[in-house]
């Protein structure tokens, strides 16, 4: 798991798919090709596919069966005509699924998986999708026929004993589920969940329960009848049709009502749904495709027929278009610990057998909110039923409850409520109507319609009265209000987030909402696994060059319509063949179309020159100041340790350059007996003494490099040179690097004082706590900017490590990294012995820095649907042309933000898409393109816009904008703008609600944290006034705001506070065999601190543990290893490894928090009375300080502004 709790889920996404892709083909190849195809098309496929499936899962079988036995009634098993083995397999897979999907609950998913797996479809993604939908929808249809009427269903119901009728049941069940099948990263179901579910209008619960019932019933039936049906039907072409038609249906959400009615009539005529679908199927399937066709969304047109006809054609093109699914080794290595839940072996196995099943997983992972099944299209139910007769019933008990209480709770505000029938959700209204239309048992169907009050995210919250706005669990990303399929396909919010998950239709509406619109990107995030695609032709839109993605629509088998510019493109021949399924004519099942995050291996068309090798140059300050600080020892040590882990291949090159008032080069040419130092004292016009031998091959000259690294720390110990010629050294570095490009790491410890780029001290210490003007936030000279642009042009990034004890004008120096796509690290008052915590931090940061993944000569292009336009970019890069970001290097810790505006009205579209394409050269010399695609709904009413606000993304975007503002205008302007952002948005919201209480400050639930976060921003180092802040600290905070990805930035803005003296295992999660307790979040206020307690504050880059004066001695002894409070040392930066339960809990919790971030935070133990506590207390942002409002005062302040 990459990120703390909130984000824990998403890695799954990637795991699943890649597991699947990585292994899928291999498995498939083991099959006799002919037979597979033959079977597939002739309809005998069930048997062979079973064969396929079973071996894969053989390892799991026992476990699977166990699960199976547990959940399923035995008779049921026997009932499955296709043999219990496959059934077991499928159920096993299901169990895993449901476990891992847990958070996302959706019963449909589980059911779908199991059904598919058991049915033995080789690996057709489409089917999965379809089945999901169908399942989701199915229940509704079947609901009309009283479930009790069917004995089997009834039996199932009871025996399975997990009918998710009551939410409470669900919960308990999910808990059990978790416990059994996998360690889930979930926090315990928070108490609110129940309320929510109930308040949720019963819409969800009802529909869920509804879905739960019939599907089980249906499954059972299928077990008995289905096999027969299959046998009969399969050989005939109608079946093929029905199959594919169902695919179409479910991919395409808006189904015209005629279709529905057709199917329905079929259903109603038959006694049970399962039975119903068989008779109905031919007709339905035949008619549907054509009708569906015109709908927007994803259309697969009469593809069906084509498919059927093309089926027998021999696949000659197999070999050339083979998709090489390889796991991204580096990603695997780099990615910080994966949660157990995220990457258990079984998952990938499941993925394997299920073919595309991982997609389900992944997609469902990205849609954490409980998906109300009703959204999906009921009509598609029959076809899948027909297609997958051997479905196992059990999924429901499981899949359903897995429904993720914790998740739901968190995600509930935006995700849970909205889809219900509130009129504003025009997009979904039609779905909501289906039940009504179908008229299932009117009572229930009606319920799902009626009981939809306001969506949770719109629930008005009176901020001045509601003191506890902060939830006890981390805040999750809201889920776009899309239908189930799209939601599942959508990009993970960790990589791609939008401040408004519902895009307003027009700029006017956006202006009315007064909310910032923009994207937050983390494109190069360490992914545990992701689908990697090798293909001769990368399919892109001919006019806008968009990469093909899950949100394009297939007009027919040969053409697809771009979802960004709406141009109709041809599907190339090569794309017709799907190497995963080894089938031809299914372009919509290719991994590109099944995953919103994919990576392509690019061909030579994407290279301007041969891929560069990894080149690393270290530029080290060795002036007196630097030697005094002693960083060289740490750096050389880290380098020696990690020399072999530097990302790269056999061509990797490395070089060193040191400087004080002169520049020293090191000749490391292979064959020399020892490194040679070449000194250039001509700093006005730097030249390279020996151009060839300064950057040397890492492997060939390893011994020399090691010699140098061992010698470096002691070489300059007696230096008296105090000057620093950074500018000339950088020019030299640029000259050295320009033929290849690569990474320059600059270590600087003082203000550059010689040669080009010299800087003067600009900080006036008396102004540090000024409340008025903060000057010098911008660079003093354009030297570093120009240099950075030159470097960027030569594909060289400059990373700056500033380890200084005094002012070093970071504002100017940072430019060298900002515009060359480097990164900036700042260690104030660094000293290797006097400040051990900084030294340790440097050491850990270096380890990460040296070994993390790196991409060279990268460019990133962000595209969006016609009508939207991007106008401002934030992050470290150079905008080379309107939407092309030039990134000399890309690292996994870099985040970006983009501001958007709506140029043309979006009235004629219901979805907008954003696509980020990152083209880079991997350290292994491969050219790769990583593509993320995000799809969001368009809404036309203000209420919807508010319902879809992603407050965290909005605050991060605002922070970025405020940084720009404070540099270009002034800090006070930026602060005013932040306050105005809250005032404007809340007053705009206030004017939309009718029952306006003028005395109260009302915010929609989705925005309730907005004022708190803005207050936190105002008290953040970057923007605070009145508190003494060193200029460099402030500038560094601004740099971080600009380039941190959202998750890390949020911690910087609003730290998390936990009470850790009473950690319990309640709700704990399991990570790598460790139990990690999950204490609730506390408000950042001194009122929460009790003297008896110990608290941990997680500020992103720093952890504080505050020990209260009368803290329990047991805790102090057990965790800190000191006998009592008085004996706790002043500077404590480690928790001792004690063999006590509470120590173990505390440490595992802290380790878990640490593992979730790239840079290792420093731990400070703060005693209640120590002077260091001010550091701690200034993070308690809800409290009043001399210079700033308390939270309540801030609210009043806002209210005053609004009333004005």
């Amino acid at each position, binding site marked *: 798991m990459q990120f703390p709790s909130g984000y824990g889920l998403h890695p799954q996404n990637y795991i699943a798919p890649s597991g699947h892709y990585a292994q899928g083909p291999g498995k498939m190849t083991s099959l006799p090709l002919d037979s597979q195809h033959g079977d597939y098309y002739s309809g005998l496929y069930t048997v062979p596919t079973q064969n396929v499936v079973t071996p894969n899962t053989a390892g799991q079988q026992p476990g699977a069966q166990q699960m199976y036995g547990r959940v399923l009634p035995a008779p049921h098993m026997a009932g499955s005509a296709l043999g219990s083995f496959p059934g077991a397999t499928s159920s096993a897979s299901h169990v895993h699924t449901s476990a891992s999907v847990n958070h996302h609950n959706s019963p449909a998913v589980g059911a779908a998986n199991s059904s598919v797996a058991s049915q033995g479809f080789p690996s057709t993604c489409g089917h999965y999708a379809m089945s999901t939908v169908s399942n989701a929808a199915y229940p509704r249809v079947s609901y009309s026929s009283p479930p009790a009427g069917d004995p089997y269903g009834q039996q199932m119901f009871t025996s399975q004993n997990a009918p998710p009728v009551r939410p409470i049941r669900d919960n308990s069940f999910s808990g059990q589920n978790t416990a059994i099948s996998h360690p889930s990263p979930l926090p315990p179901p928070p108490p609110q969940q129940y309320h929510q579910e109930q308040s949720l209008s019963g819409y969800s619960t009802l529909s869920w329960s509804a879905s739960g019932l019939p599907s089980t019933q249906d499954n059972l039936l299928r077990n008995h009848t289905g096999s027969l049906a299959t046998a009969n039907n399969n050989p005939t072409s109608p079946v093929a049709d029905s199959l594919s038609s169902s695919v179409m249906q479910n991919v395409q959400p808006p189904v015209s009502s005629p279709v529905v009615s057709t199917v329905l009539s079929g259903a109603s005529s038959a006694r049970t749904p399962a039975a119903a679908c068989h008779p109905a199927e031919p007709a339905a399937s035949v008619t549907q495709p054509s009708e569906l066709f015109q709908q927007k969304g994803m259309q697969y047109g009469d593809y069906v027929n084509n498919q059927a006809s093309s089926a027998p054609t021999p696949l000659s093109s197999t070999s050339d278009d083979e998709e090489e699914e390889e796991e991204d080794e580096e990603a695997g290595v780099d990615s910080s610990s994966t949660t157990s839940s995220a990457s258990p072996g079984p998952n990938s196995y499941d993925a394997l057998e299920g073919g595309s099943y991982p997609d389900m997983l992944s997609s469902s992972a990205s849609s954490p909110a409980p998906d109300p099944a009703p959204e999906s299209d009921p009509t598609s139910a029959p076809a899948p039923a027909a297609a997958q007769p051997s479905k196992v019933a059990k999924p429901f008990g499981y899949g359903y409850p897995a429904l993720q209480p914790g998740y739901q709770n968190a995600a509930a505000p935006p995700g849970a409520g909205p889809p219900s029938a509130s009129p504003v959700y025009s997009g979904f209204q039609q779905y909501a109507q289906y039940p009504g239309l179908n008229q299932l048992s009117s009572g229930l169907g009606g319920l799902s319609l009626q009981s939809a009050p306001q969506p949770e995210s719109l629930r008005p919250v009176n901020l001045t009265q509601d003191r506890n706005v902060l939830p006890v669990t981390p805040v999750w990303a809201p889920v776009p209000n899309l239908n189930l399929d799209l939601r599942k396909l959508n990009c993970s919010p960790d990589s791609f987030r939008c401040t408004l998950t519902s895009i307003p239709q027009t700029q006017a509406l956006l202006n009315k909402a007064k909310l910032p619109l923009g994207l937050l990107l983390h494109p190069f995030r360490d992914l545990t696994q992701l689908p990697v695609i090798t293909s001769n032709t990368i399919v892109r839109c001919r*006019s*806008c*060059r968009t990469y093909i993605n899950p949100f394009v629509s297939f007009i027919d088998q040969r053409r697809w319509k771009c979802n960004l*510019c709406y141009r109709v493109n041809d599907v190339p021949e090569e794309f017709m063949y799907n190497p995963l399924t080894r089938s031809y004519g299914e372009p919509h099942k290719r991994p590109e179309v099944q995953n919103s995050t994919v990576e392509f291996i690019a061909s030579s068309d*994407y290279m*301007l020159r041969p891929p560069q090798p990894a080149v690393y140059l270290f530029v080290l300050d060795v002036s007196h100041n630097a030697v005094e600080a002693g960083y060289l020892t740490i750096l050389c040590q880290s380098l020696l340790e990690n020399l072999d882990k530097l990302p790269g291949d056999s061509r990797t090159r490395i070089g060193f350059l040191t400087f004080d008032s002169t520049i020293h080069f090191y000749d490391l040419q292979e064959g020399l007996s020892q490194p040679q130092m070449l000194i250039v004292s001509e700093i006005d016009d730097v030249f390279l003494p020996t151009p060839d031998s300064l950057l040397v091959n890492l492997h060939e000259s390893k011994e020399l490099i090691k010699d140098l690294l061992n010698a470096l720390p002691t070489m300059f110990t007696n230096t008296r040179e105090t000057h620093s010629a950074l500018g000339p050294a950088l020019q030299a570095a640029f000259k050295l690097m320009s033929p290849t490009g690569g990474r320059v790491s600059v270590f600087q410890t003082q203000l550059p004082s010689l040669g080009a780029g010299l800087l003067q001290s600009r900080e006036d210490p008396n102004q540090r706590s000024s409340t008025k003007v903060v000057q010098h936030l*911008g*660079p*003093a*000279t*354009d030297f570093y*900017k*120009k240099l950075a*642009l030159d470097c960027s*042009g030569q594909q060289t990034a400059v990373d700056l490590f500033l380890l200084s004890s005094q002012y070093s004008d970071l*504002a*100017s120096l940072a*430019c060298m990294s900002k*515009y060359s796509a480097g990164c900036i690290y700042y260690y104030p008052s660094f000293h290797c012995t006097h400040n051990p915590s900084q030294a340790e931090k440097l050491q850990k940061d270096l380890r990460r820095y040296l070994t993390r993944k790196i991409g060279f000569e990268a*460019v990133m*292009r962000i*595209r969006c649907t*016609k009508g939207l*336009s991007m*106008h*401002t*970019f934030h992050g470290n890069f*150079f*905008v*080379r*042309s*309107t*939407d*092309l970001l030039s990134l000399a290097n890309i690292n996994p810790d870099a985040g970006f933000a983009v501001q958007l505006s709506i140029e043309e009205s979006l009235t004629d579209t219901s979805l907008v898409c954003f696509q980020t394409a990152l083209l880079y050269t991997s350290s292994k010399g491969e050219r790769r393109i990583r593509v993320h695609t995000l799809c969001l709904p368009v809404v036309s009413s203000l209420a919807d816009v508010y319902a879809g606000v992603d407050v965290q993304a909005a605050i991060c975007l605002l922070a970025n904008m405020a940084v*720009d503002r404070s540099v*270009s205008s002034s800090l006070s302007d930026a602060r005013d703008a932040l306050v105005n952002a809250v005032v404007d948005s809340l007053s705009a919201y206030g004017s939309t609600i009718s029952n306006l209480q003028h005395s109260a400050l009302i915010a929609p639930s989705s925005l309730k944290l907005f004022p708190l976060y803005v207050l936190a921003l105002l008290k953040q180092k970057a923007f605070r006034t009145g508190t003494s802040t060193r200029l460099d600290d402030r500038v560094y905070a601004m740099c971080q705001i600009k380039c941190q990805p959202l998750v890390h930035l949020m911690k910087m803005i609003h730290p998390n506070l936990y009470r850790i003296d009473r950690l319990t295992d309640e709700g704990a999660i399991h990570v790598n065999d460790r139990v990690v307790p999950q204490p609730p979040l506390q408000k950042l206020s001194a009122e929460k601190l009790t003297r008896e307690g110990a608290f941990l504050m997680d500020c992103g880059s720093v952890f504080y543990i505050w020990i209260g004066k009368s803290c329990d001695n047991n805790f102090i002894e057990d965790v800190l290893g000191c006998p009592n409070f008085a004996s706790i040392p002043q500077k404590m930066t480690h928790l001792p490894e004690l063999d006590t339960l509470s120590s173990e809990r505390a440490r595992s919790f802290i380790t878990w928090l640490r593992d979730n971030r790239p840079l290792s935070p420093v731990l400070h133990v703060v005693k209640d009375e120590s002077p260091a506590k001010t550091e701690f207390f200034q993070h308690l942002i809800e409290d009043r300080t001399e210079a700033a409002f308390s939270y309540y005062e801030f609210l009043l302040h806002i209210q005053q502004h609004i009333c004005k």
Partner: protein
Amino acid sequence: TRLTLLFPAVRTRARGGCREVPAGDLLPASVGRLGFVCLIPDTPCLDAKLVLTRNLKTKSCGYLRRIITLSDLECDYINARSCCSKLNKWVIPELIGHAIVTVLMLISLHWFIFLLNLPVATWNIYRFIMVPSGNMGVFDPTEIHNRGQLKSHMKEAMIKLGFHLLCFFMYLYSMILALIND
């Protein structure tokens, strides 16, 4: 044909389409002369106005060129770095040229024309002075794409172009008037 780029419709289309590699500077040097047929007889300058007219002519061309360069940037034909360095080169000549014209007008006591030119000259100087110390000139490649700067530059260039066209004809008129009076 490059002039078509000036029309918004074309620009929007181009914005949708994205090219991976900027094609570099395709701008023919002569484009700036387009549309300004010399109406002035090629005789030795009789009047300061004649000099001015010529000055003006080249200047308008300069703005035209600026607009074209900016729209090139907008359409991805050129990268921000080269665009800005190209434009920044002309900022000081423009500033000086305009200042000279304004002063000349003052000296020759053409009050109306002086007052007409004064705001523009002031604006040029103001803009030049207000460039933050870290920026690479009036046009900064790292910021030109941000916060609609490109658009405002474009707008400014358009306004100046209009202004100078107006001046051109005004000067021409007064020059002819002066010639006739001679």
